[in-house]
């Protein structure tokens, strides 16, 4: 596998190179571009590592959603050069930071390279635990059953984050619509794309969420696509976010974790306990949770991208 090895080497160097470039970039805007490029390269790395589920997530969330949200903050920050240069660490401090980074990196490399061989693995156990659930994708089985509590808490964390972001608003803006106003663009390439891409994207998003049960994909990846397909017409000024006090929006954000929690607690009655699925009904129940979660992930991510309410409610 010489070609594969070369590919790995090239990818490793490219990732490190773009990451270093990102730090060194002169403007914040360029730094964000460097970050997104690094993220796209990481997607390829994940494919090379045989983790296609993660590759999808990295592309959708790691590079895509994170890049976009960084970008919209950069676009609205205009750095005070004096303050920044005053706060820039001195040469000695930077040398110290480099020393710290190198020692941590070095220690880590030492630790990683001395990991035992053959490596301990739960691959076999996870595979054995996938079939009884009626799923075909062991990663989804781990996410929804074996480590279901992680996923439940993570879904709840997203609600925490949305609420935390909203609560940073100014008091008098409460009840307003999130994010800046974009001028409606009637013509031009952007409005065209904002009209033709979402229908295709929504289908693809639902597809990616749907196939998650049996092959790589799932709620987080699909939900991110759906969020992006809402953000695009928002940028083009075609749609406006609902008010943060709108209970329908809140329900949409919370419905995923609520469904997950309800199914989990129902396990006390209909199955062996919390987050256990009754035999034979595991797959439909998991699909139900995934559907609700896809909706919630999409709504939560869109809200995180849009930010806190910035416009007063119109009475």
């Amino acid at each position, binding site marked *: 596998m010489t070609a594969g090895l070369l590919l790995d080497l090239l990818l490793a160097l490219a990732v490190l190179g773009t990451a270093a470039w990102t730090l060194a970039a002169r403007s914040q805007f360029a730094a964000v571009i460097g970050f997104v490029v690094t993220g796209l390269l990481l997607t390829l790395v994940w494919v090379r590592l045989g983790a296609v589920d993660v590759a999808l997530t990295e592309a959708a969330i790691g590079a895509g959603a994170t890049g976009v949200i960084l970008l919209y903050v950069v676009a*609205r920050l*205009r750095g005070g050069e004096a303050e920044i240069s005053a706060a820039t660490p001195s040469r000695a401090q930077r040398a110290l930071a480099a020393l710290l980074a190198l020692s941590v990196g070095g220690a880590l490399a030492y630790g990683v390279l001395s990991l035992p061989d053959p490596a301990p693995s739960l691959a076999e156990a996870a595979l054995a635990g996938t079939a009884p659930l009626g799923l075909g994708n062991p990663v989804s089985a781990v996410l929804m059953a074996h480590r279901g509590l992680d996923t439940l808490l993570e879904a709840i964390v997203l609600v925490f984050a949305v609420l935390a972001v909203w609560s940073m608003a100014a008091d008098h803006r409460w009840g307003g619509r999130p*994010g*800046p*106003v*974009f*001028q409606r663009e009637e013509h031009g*390439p*952007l409005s*065209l*794309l904002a009209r*033709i*891409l979402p229908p*295709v994207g929504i289908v693809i998003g639902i597809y990616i969420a749907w196939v998650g049960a049996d092959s790589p994909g799932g709620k987080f990846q699909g939900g991110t696509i759906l969020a992006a397909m809402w953000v695009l017409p928002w940028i083009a*000024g075609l749609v406006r976010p609902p008010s943060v006090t709108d209970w329908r929006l809140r329900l949409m954000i919370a419905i995923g974790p609520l469904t997950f929690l309800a199914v989990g607690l129902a396990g006390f009655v209909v199955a062996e306990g919390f987050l256990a699925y009754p035999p034979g009904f595991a797959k439909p129940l998991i699909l139900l949770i995934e559907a609700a979660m896809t909706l919630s992930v999409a709504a939560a991510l869109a809200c995180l991208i849009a930010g806190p309410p*910035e*416009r007063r409610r119109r009475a």
Partner: protein
Amino acid sequence: MSLLVGAFSTACVLAGVFFFVAGTAGLIRFPDTLSRVHALTKADNLGLGLIVLGLLPLAPGLGAALKLLLIWVLVVIGGATAAQLIGAAAARDEHAMPSPPSGGRGLGEGGVP
């Protein structure tokens, strides 16, 4: 896989790779931004199209083949839009105006002076 199909795939893929390399050469050698944008999108879209064409016979089923085509269509649409917007942005940067440009709209009330 018959020998013929294999040869066709290989040829298409290699041609596609060639276009990617050519696109990069254009990117590096062309002097101004606008021609770089065009060199990039045209050559890369064509290269990707050839690679898709080469991989089509290897696709395991109709679904995979359709997916390949859809990917290409999406890349072409996205590329065209982005190229147009980048070109406009380049033009705008070229005649950078002293006052905030028309593109500075949409800032809303971000609190930026």
